[in-house]
């Protein structure tokens, strides 16, 4: 198990190494990537801000929830913060399990929970301005 909030570039292969073991026949990795467009506008870069002292325990909690639902799963998660360029990885969720269906379902569940309960915010720098992304809403930044 590993849960990180870091300003360093993320390495999905390294996180897969954390969850891999001889009994794991499947590893599912979700990697979120900074996209060059949003709301029909070109995006230049993103800034992520975290409440790190809360974000890491919230990630651990999600890992424990996954272990309750999929007892054979192993989990690793990492979220990047600070300035991110187009094409860089912003978030990685990695789940191993004996079989693929559990790995895929648990990984999907993990990234969905992370997006709703881990206090990390995205500031989008686009050609039409700078916005905080709050759920489905983009609110102008000051």
């Amino acid at each position, binding site marked *: 198990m590993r849960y990180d909030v870091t300003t360093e570039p993320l390495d999905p292969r390294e996180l897969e190494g954390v969850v891999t073991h001889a009994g794991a026949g499947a590893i599912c990795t979700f990697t979120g990537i900074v996209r060059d467009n949003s709301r029909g506008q070109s995006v230049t870069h993103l800034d992520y801000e975290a409440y790190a002292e*809360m974000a890491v325990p919230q990630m651990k909690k999600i890992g424990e929830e996954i272990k309750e639902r999929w007892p054979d799963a192993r989990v690793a998660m990492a979220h990047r913060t600070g300035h991110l360029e187009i094409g860089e990885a912003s978030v990685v969720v990695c789940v191993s399990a004996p079989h693929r269906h559990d790995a895929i379902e648990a990984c999907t569940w993990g990234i969905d929970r992370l997006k709703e309960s881990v206090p990390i915010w995205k500031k989008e720098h686009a050609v039409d301005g700078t916005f905080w992304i*709050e759920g489905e809403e983009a*609110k102008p930044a000051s």
Partner: protein
Amino acid sequence: MAVAVAVKVRFFARLRELAGVETEALHVQPNASLSDVYAVLRGMHDALPEQTAVRAALNQEFAEWSTRVRDGDEVAFIPPVSGGR
């Protein structure tokens, strides 16, 4: 006898920008709830949004607005998290 309760408040993301500060050291009445703390802060920083647009956290855990604060608590007011589909 009433002794004020000292809390540390933290703001993040858009709320940090609207408040104009990252942290605030605040003294509130004994038995003050997270709602009461936020109301005091809105009095100090009038750009802060209504409570319904915000979630509260107490000592790094999401908390109900009715939760009472205690001396030394860390309170955070949190806008909706990053989302994406």
